[in-house]
């Protein structure tokens, strides 16, 4: 059984017990425990089920690499699936549940898949479930989906908050083991600004477990001293529980800090995402031990050798009473020694190497441990727990020589440097045949904006598995990185580590070497996804020779550990199957993040009301307090209509239209873009920007202007105002201000840079209010001021500056409604007050605010086009009968050349007309006018489409505008429009101006 040992556990506080629950069972652990160690202390070896076969799964590692021990954690708004028990710190009240089983962890119906495993080899689903066709969607897929997946889907809203930090540093050091500490120390001493991050809750990495000597003192003391020294440096920041998640181009890196996962009582954000710019990045990310591939290596109790000793040394937990160690290298002997010294039984060390010698082996023998060389595990027996192992010759085919009873197997297939961060941004790897590992290729590092390397790898992550070289490598990396960043103050000496001598590792990819198919089909490579040696071999047999093919065909390395344990072993099996060298087969691509990071952390604070900024006008507050039913328009929210009590939205819109036509309405037009274009060449410049003449506009006058893109399409429109000799005010559409401003700047800076023109976007400097309706003048006159607003003094399409009441105002006689209309701009700070005075003074005239829908209806009644409705990015001015606005006098303007192209000059283009349904109903939005027959692709031919369609309260009938093939030549003709129900609706082609064709009402 697995249990707590007395007198061990450097990370736990035995003085402080914590209570937690697992699958509803109340258990007890200690402060400092991980969920995995606490479960093991309670003899809870079974922690989950595998993905495909629902095999029982126990913990296999002790850190970020863990593929098996995943749990549903917490409840309600704190619930989170797929949490690794090995990296989850226990706290009082923690609730965990195992995953992927029904009805219970112990008895899972899905485990029947194991019995059928031989029918479910790699890629079986590509070969079956094809017949009958409809069964995939209705039968096969639902069943597969249900049995797949791991954790439960969260249901509730996330109750936690998140935040982002931005940091600019000289040197980012990822990893707080001895190499990382040495690196941060060295870089800090050199004078660099350093950020050091460690993913776990403790400094020191593996060295503190294995306890070598550094600078003549035990590693744990050296780590303490070094941490102390670094803490004293004001130029170095250090963070625990903060993982280097990804390295991106140009020295950008992500850190993922878990602030309250271990202690929910702490107030504040749960996770913090660090967005870092570093001149140099040191990846001292350590190495991960590889499993060995032998039959039954997935049975709970088969664990990585280093993890077994981590549990003993760090948490005082033994995985079992009798542990068989199986290895191809010396390091695993340390596990045997630790266990033996802790009083546990080591029935045997199975070493695949026939003739390994060295001090660690000698020490094991001296402690009386049986060492079997040249041997292998043929098969592990057991169901939910290891019962025994059968040993055999590594060189043979698996004939069992002896069965050894045990309840734990500690395996080591060697170590793989953690090269993820090195590789994220293009760093390449090299195969080190002596050490049997891929390690960073210093000849091919990731390069930054200047083309120079910006990632340095150090310590075991750099392939230096021994203390002495790891710690000095870290130190050197720190000095080197600081130097590149411009810091090389003198510091202390590089630390000196000491190591026990170790013999060479021997590559062992399969145990035994000649294992039968039966054994290979029980030798797991990917524990979570249930990929076995036989699966990779089948993939190779079927021609999936690229490592990417094999990965995708077998799902090897695609589990939540992203192949941390399985990739190299799988790759080795693949290369053996192909008779190729490992480096020739290559690795799959490492992608961020290193381990999964929460979506909440990525989102940060940008949720709900902070999701995206909302722009507000000076009138927004009034509108929102007075029934505004808003619609998003660009970054703004504009009132669609102002709904009164007891009214529907439709009623409100009709009321607003009628009132503006009969009395007076107010529209908050502040969102319209306002660009000041000024300078000696402003007129010349605007003549290029607009299709019509702008330079000739007299001071004091307004003119409707059209803008095309260089590609000829209509992009914006608005009223242009001549303010003085070299100043124009250009109105743009709502949401168009920034776009058009940028467009103008582009041309000014990049094409016509010799022109003397300045453009300023003053959209937010003014509130602009349209006072619209037959009583508009009376209302403004009532407010007083120093301006004569009579028809004679301020005729249609002219403007004036002066005072209205107490307000500084510019008054434009422009109309988008067809009514007598004044658009009045006042400084933004006076906007709300001005609006209030209009509302107050207008009471006797029946003033009402109106929203965008009334605006749209009134402009449609007048046949005015709307950018975004009549235009959609494919429409040119000619389509809208706006040829009058295309200057023939000007040699050049944006779009002029484009309009000459054959398709744009085609007389068969669809053109703007008005449409009246025969029965008076409203045409559906976006309906197409159907023509006879079908095209070559069997699609119904069309001859036009609706661009705007409304119920007109003024005319009490449906009105619409549309683009129709040769439409203006077909006045009076009735054509059919489709409806989605398959029927059609007849409409007559008419003039698009439905109301006040002569313009008498706006020009008074």
């Amino acid at each position, binding site marked *: 059984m697995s249990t707590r040992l007395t007198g061990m556990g450097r990370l736990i506080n035995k003085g402080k017990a914590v209570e937690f629950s697992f699958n509803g069972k109340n258990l007890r652990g200690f402060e400092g425990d991980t969920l995995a160690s606490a479960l093991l202390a309670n003899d809870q070896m079974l922690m989950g089920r595998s*993905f495909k076969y629902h095999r029982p799964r126990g913990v296999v590692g002790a850190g970020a690499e863990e593929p098996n021990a995943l749990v549903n954690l917490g409840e309600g708004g704190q619930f989170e*699936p*797929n949490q690794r028990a090995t990296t989850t710190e226990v706290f009082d009240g923690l609730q965990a549940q195992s995953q992927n089983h029904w009805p219970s962890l112990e008895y899972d119906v899905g485990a029947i898949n194991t019995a059928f495993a031989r*029918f479910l080899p790699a890629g079986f689903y*590509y070969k079956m479930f*094809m017949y009958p066709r409809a069964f*995939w*969607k209705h039968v096969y*897929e639902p069943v597969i*989906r249900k049995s797949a*997946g*791991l954790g439960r*889907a*969260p*249901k*509730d*809203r*996330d109750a936690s908050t998140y935040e982002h930090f931005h940091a600019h540093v000289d040197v980012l050091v990822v990893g707080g083991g001895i190499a990382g500490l040495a690196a941060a120390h060295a870089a800090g001493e050199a004078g660099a600004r350093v950020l050091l991050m460690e993913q776990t809750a403790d400094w020191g990495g593996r060295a503190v477990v294995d306890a070598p000597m550094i600078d003549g003192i035990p590693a744990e003391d050296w780590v303490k001293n070094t941490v102390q020294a670094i803490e004293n440096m004001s130029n170095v920041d250090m963070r625990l529980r903060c993982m280097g998640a990804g390295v991106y181009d140009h020295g950008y890196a992500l850190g993922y800090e878990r602030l309250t996962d271990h202690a929910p009582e702490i107030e504040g954000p749960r996770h913090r995402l660090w*967005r870092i710019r570093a001149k140099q990045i040191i990846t001292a990310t350590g190495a991960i031990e590889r499993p060995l591939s032998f039959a039954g290596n997935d049975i709970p109790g088969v664990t990585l050798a280093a993890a077994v000793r981590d549990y003993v040394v760090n948490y005082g937990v033994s995985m079992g009473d009798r542990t068989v160690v199986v290895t191809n290298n010396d390091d695993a002997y340390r596990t045997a020694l630790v266990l033996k010294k802790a009083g546990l039984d080591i029935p045997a060390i199975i070493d695949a190497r026939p003739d390994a010698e060295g001090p660690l082996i000698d020490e094991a023998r001296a402690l009386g441990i049986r060492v079997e060389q040249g041997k292998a595990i043929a098969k592990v027996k057991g169901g939910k727990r290891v019962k025994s192992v059968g040993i055999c010759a590594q060189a043979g085919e698996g004939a069992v020589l002896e069965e050894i009873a045990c309840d734990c197997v500690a395996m080591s297939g060697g170590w793989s440097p953690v090269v993820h961060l090195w590789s994220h*941004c293009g760093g390449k790897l090299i195969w080190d045949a002596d050490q049997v590992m891929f390690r960073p290729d210093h000849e091919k590092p990731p390069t930054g904006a200047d083309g120079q390397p910006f990632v340095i790898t150090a310590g075991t992550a750099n392939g230096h598995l021994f203390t002495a070289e790891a710690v000095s490598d870290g130190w050197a990396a720190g000095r080197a990185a600081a130097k590149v960043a411009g810091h090389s103050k003198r510091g202390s000496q590089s630390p000196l580590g000491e190591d026990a001598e170790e013999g060479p590792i021997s590559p062992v990819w399969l145990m035994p070497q000649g294992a039968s198919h039966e054994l290979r089909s029980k030798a797991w490579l990917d524990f979570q996804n249930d990929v076995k040696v036989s699966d990779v071999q*089948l993939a190779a047999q*079927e*021609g*999936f020779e*690229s490592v990417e*093919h094999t990965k995708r065909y077998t799902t090897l390395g695609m589990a*939540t550990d*992203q192949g941390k344990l399985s990739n190299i072993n799988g790759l080795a099996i693949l290369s053996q199957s192909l008779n190729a060298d490992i480096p020739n087969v290559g690795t799959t691509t490492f*992608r*961020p*993040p290193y381990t999964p*990071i*929460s*979506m*909440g952390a*990525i*989102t940060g604070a*940008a949720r709900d*009301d902070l999701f*995206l900024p*909302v722009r507000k006008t000076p009138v927004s507050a009034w509108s929102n307090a007075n029934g505004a039913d808003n*619609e*998003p328009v660009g970054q703004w929210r504009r009132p669609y209509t102002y709904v009164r009590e007891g009214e529907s939205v439709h009623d409100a819109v009709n009321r607003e239209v009628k009132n503006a036509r009969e009395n007076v309405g107010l529209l908050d037009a502040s969102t319209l873009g306002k660009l000041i274009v000024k300078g000696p060449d402003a007129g010349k410049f605007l003549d290029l920007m607009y299709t019509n003449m702008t330079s000739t506009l007299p001071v004091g006058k307004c003119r409707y202007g059209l803008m095309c893109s260089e590609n*000829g399409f209509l992009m914006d429109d608005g009223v242009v105002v001549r303010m003085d000799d070299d100043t124009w005010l250009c109105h743009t559409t709502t949401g168009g201000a920034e776009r058009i401003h940028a467009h103008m700047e582009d041309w000014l800076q990049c094409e016509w840079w010799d022109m003397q023109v300045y453009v300023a976007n003053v959209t937010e400097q003014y509130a602009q209010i349209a006072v619209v309706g037959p009583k508009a003048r009376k209302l403004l006159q009532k407010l007083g001021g120093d301006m004569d607003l009579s028809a004679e003094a301020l005729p249609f399409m002219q403007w004036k500056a002066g005072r209205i009441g107490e307000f500084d105002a510019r008054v434009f006689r422009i109309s988008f409604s067809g009514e007598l209309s004044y658009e009045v701009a006042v400084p933004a700070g006076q906007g709300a007050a001005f609006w209030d005075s209009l509302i107050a003074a207008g009471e006797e005239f029946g003033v009402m605010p109106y929203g965008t829908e009334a605006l749209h209806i009134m402009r449609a009644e007048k046949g005015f086009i709307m950018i975004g409705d009549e235009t*959609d*990015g494919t429409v040119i001015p000619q389509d809208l009968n706006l040829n009058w606005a295309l200057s023939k006098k000007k040699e050049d303007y944006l779009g002029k050349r484009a309009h000459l*192209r*054959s*398709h744009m000059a085609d007389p068969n283009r669809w053109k703007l007309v008005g449409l009246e349904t025969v029965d008076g109903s409203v045409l559906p*939005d*976006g*309906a*197409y006018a*159907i023509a006879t027959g079908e*095209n*070559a*692709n069997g*699609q119904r031919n*069309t001859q036009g489409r609706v661009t705007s369609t409304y119920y007109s309260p003024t005319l009490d009938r449906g009105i619409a505008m549309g683009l129709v093939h040769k439409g203006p030549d077909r006045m009076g003709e009735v054509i059919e429009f489709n409806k*989605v129900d398959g029927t059609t609706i007849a409409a007559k082609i008419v003039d698009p101006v439905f109301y006040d064709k002569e313009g008498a009402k706006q020009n008074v």
Partner: protein
Amino acid sequence: MKRYSAFAVAREAMRQHKGWDRAWAKRAPKKKYDVIIVGAGGHGLATAYYLGKNFGITNVAVLEKGWLGGGNTGRNTTIIRSNYLQDPSAAIYEKARSLYETMSQDLNYNVMFSPRGLIMLAQTQHEVRGYQRTAQANALQGVQTEWIGPQRVKELCPIMNISGPRYPVLGGLYQERGGTARHDAVAWGYARACSDMGMDIIQQCEVTGVRQQNGKVVGVDTSQGAIDCDKLGMVVAGHAGVMAKMAGFRLPIESVALQALVSEPIKPCMDVVVMANTVHGYMSQSDKGEMVIGGGTDGFNNYTQRGSFHHIEETVRALVETFPMISRLKMLRQWGGIVDVTGDRSPILSKTPVDGVFVNCGWGTGGFKAIPGSGWAMAELMAKGQSPLTDEFSMYRFREGKFIDESVAAGVAH
């Protein structure tokens, strides 16, 4: 070719699966082929397949500089839909979608086409009108879509928040027979079928030059030597510009990075595909249980198959707003692909200035869903010199000002 079936799997299970052949044969290039297709991605392999199946042209080689299906075919978010606005787009995407319906049976390879339904959300009045227009157009194009209200959206996708403070859901364009498929399987299935027709799929074979005589193609130079051909199809997505340069012409395309990500797998919670264009994100749940998420493209040319993190951030932010429950899921993996984007963001399937050279590129972010239709059309174009499905997608349309612009319905071509 050994037929795949449950029976075959059971039979092989009894003999340790020793009887499975290679899915596609490994062959050295011949001296000459009738047709060479460059690019063994989905589009290239589908082109070869339909050349054989529809036109009996089987003396075909498909050359691949890396590994088959290793480009965008294996890097996308596997969405299949045909709810496009413009006639030419709707025609080719619907052709593709309808071929997906029967692809598993046609190829005898389970590509797991899952017509689980797809919703494009309308979150502004402008989008409402745009999607209603698309629904109208689709009705005439023979594409089954419908406009649905917010309550129906919620019924189809209960994990969605339809009343977010910033962009409440106003409805959506729903394509019931849209969905997803297993992307790698599409490439593998076509490769197996092509190989079975006697075509040669040659991996690790990089084309380094296009040989011409009198303005007509006569072959290609490759890393495995010169190979002759009568016709050449360039189907190399992001690298189309580089390849066109070899043949001596330019293409109106730019290559940019598109990124995607997946979450850790969870139990089924989302049965439809949802695309939210206003906030720039789309999401579906794979059969494995991962939430598959995509977003927008970078604005600059990039061949690194990596992208900038801030795009991932924007996309995740948008989706957390739309699906609040994903906040406590974790991003497992992000990756990038190189997509080739044309001046109107619609693809090019076209003859070229070089006689006998045909080009298929510019699918931008919409390539996967088009694979069978694109292959079908390209095969027809190469075999007959003309296809109604490709007529409008000529590379010369830009000169005439005749664009196929899908962005008009607020629908980005994901």
